[in-house]
């Protein structure tokens, strides 16, 4: 039973990370109907920037404190958001009126570019987070020894998701984002600056993706320049699982996928772990193509 709960908490931590990445995918898809393949690489940038900043002189002795982690997270999120915004402005905006496939190929090109730029900067080897700078403590939760980092990951992702949800639901800018997602033309007629909304989406999504990268670095302690694609694909699976374009859906889908994967790896087969999430994806698309929380739309053929 203890094994089960350990796997469950692990699944929630991984799921929280998937959900954070999925939010970026789902927001971009909701507004632009584009699978941003470069999003997974922005996540990797978060992990690498986190590593670099972590070892920077002024953060070195401030870790272990919540403030240190928060400063680190804010810096990483800001930088990754900036890369996301540049990407939107330079590559995706000129393609907004182009056929679907051009944008997809462009996104793949951006992914290849970002990935190889990272490889040239840091080298192709796997990098490790400085272990001595990370808190190694475990916390007793209901008689269960859970690593502190796992709790930090779950809490951090849940807090960020909640803030985003409230932002999109309760603020005026959030309403503008939702309006642009439904109908860009109509939103424009209502006086919404759609260009700015899209730019904002490309700031928020990458920021959350970057935060997820930082959390992965802190949680596993290991990063590689190619890890973005698998995490990205799984996060996209999570977004579809919950209903793409739907923010609560991405959260639910991410957490659910993390738990399914952790339990599947523990009880079914570790070797088939990555195949499991794709099987879930195919299954969900067959039985409920619009995802768990998505609305059914009449659109056949």
């Amino acid at each position, binding site marked *: 039973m203890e094994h089960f709960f350990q796997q469950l908490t692990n699944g929630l931590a991984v799921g929280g990370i998937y959900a954070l990445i999925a939010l970026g995918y789902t927001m971009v898809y909701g507004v632009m109907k584009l699978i941003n393949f470069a999003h997974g690489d922005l996540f990797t940038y978060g992990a690498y920037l986190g590593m670099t900043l972590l070892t920077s002189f002024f953060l070195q002795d401030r870790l272990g404190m919540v403030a240190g982690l928060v400063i680190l997270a804010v810096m990483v999120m800001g930088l990754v958001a900036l890369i996301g915004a540049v990407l939107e402005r330079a590559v995706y905006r000129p393609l907004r009126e182009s056929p679907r496939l*051009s944008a997809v190929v462009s996104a*793949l090109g951006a992914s290849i570019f970002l990935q190889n730029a990272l490889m040239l900067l840091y080298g192709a080897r796997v990098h490790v987070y400085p272990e001595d700078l990370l808190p190694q403590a475990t916390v007793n939760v209901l008689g269960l020894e859970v690593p502190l980092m796992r709790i930090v990951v779950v809490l951090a992702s849940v807090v960020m998701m909640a803030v985003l949800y409230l932002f999109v639901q309760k603020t005026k800018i959030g309403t503008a984002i939702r309006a642009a997602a439904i109908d860009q033309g109509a939103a424009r007629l209502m006086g919404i600056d759609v260009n700015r909304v899209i730019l904002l989406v490309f700031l928020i999504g990458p920021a959350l993706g970057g935060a997820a990268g930082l959390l992965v670095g802190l949680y596993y302690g290991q990063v590689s320049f190619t890890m973005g694609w698998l995490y990205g694909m799984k996060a996209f699976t999570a977004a579809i699982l919950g209903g793409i374009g739907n923010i609560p859906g991405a959260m639910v889908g991410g957490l659910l996928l993390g738990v399914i994967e952790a339990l599947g790896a523990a009880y079914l087969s570790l070797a088939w772990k990555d*195949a499991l999430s794709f099987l879930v994806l195919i299954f969900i698309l067959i039985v409920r*193509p619009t995802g768990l929380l998505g609305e059914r739309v009449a659109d056949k053929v």
Partner: protein
Amino acid sequence: MSRGLLVSYAILTVVLAGAPLVLDAYWVDVLNSVGLYALLALSLNIILGDAGLFNMGHAAFYAVGAYTTAILNTRLGLPTLWALPVSGLVAALFAALVARPVIHLRGDYLLIVTIGLGEIVRIALVNDVFGLTGGANGLFGIARPTLFGLKIRRPHEFFYLIWAFVALTVFLFHRLEQSRFGRALNYLREDPVAAEGSGVNTGRYKLLAFALGAAWAGMAGNLYAAKMTIISPESFSFWESVLLFLIVILGGSGSIPGVLLGAFLVVGLPELFRGFASARMLVFGLVMMVLMVFRTQGLLPLRTVRFKKSDLERARAAP
């Protein structure tokens, strides 16, 4: 086929036929790779370009063909060239089987599902499914093909085998474009609802497109296995599918000359820059972005059929 295109093909044939006489083994081998990718991209073009179905897991069918050949040859001793049609058939059946439940999905959803299928196949190969695929190490010791008693061993010999197959494929696929089947696929791509409405069984044609594309990818897999004599799951990763996707889109989706040009540019051209190996992919990504921004339809886009006025009048006069 227009006269300009025929002349281009004739020039290409002459140039290619003479190429092995002047090039060294390394460059002939590069051209062999270009030929294999041309075959694969032409096969994907049926699915992606002609039928408009976003398939980003094409490497799976390539893998099925290559592994079928390897298993038949190393376990049962079937000559490699005899395994060619079998590989195509197995890949087609496999495609029909896995595409069946997901074929109705729309654009992006199909894209994601095919990525998933491709990954599942790769993971299955790594996990040594049925104890036949040799796990992460793959299979080795695949026999070289023998044609009319001639053992095909050197790159120069493979060159003619591969490019003869490419030529045959180009001819067949041009014929296919003009056929009822090809026109139905184009109709499907342009407007699935109207196609269904005018009596095209869209589900069936989508499956046929998948099966036909997969058959050719499977046969390309056979040639790859014969050329390499060693295959492993690494060769059939997601990026392989992406590369094929790029060749088709960058060259010109749905256009056979475009796809051929795409194969030369995407596979052949980077070889010229081997010296800058590390920055090569960076530039490649950059070129993709820039190219799509400035040339949305690819380099040699498909020219859509323009009806002559007389055709329209005749159509109107028909009962």
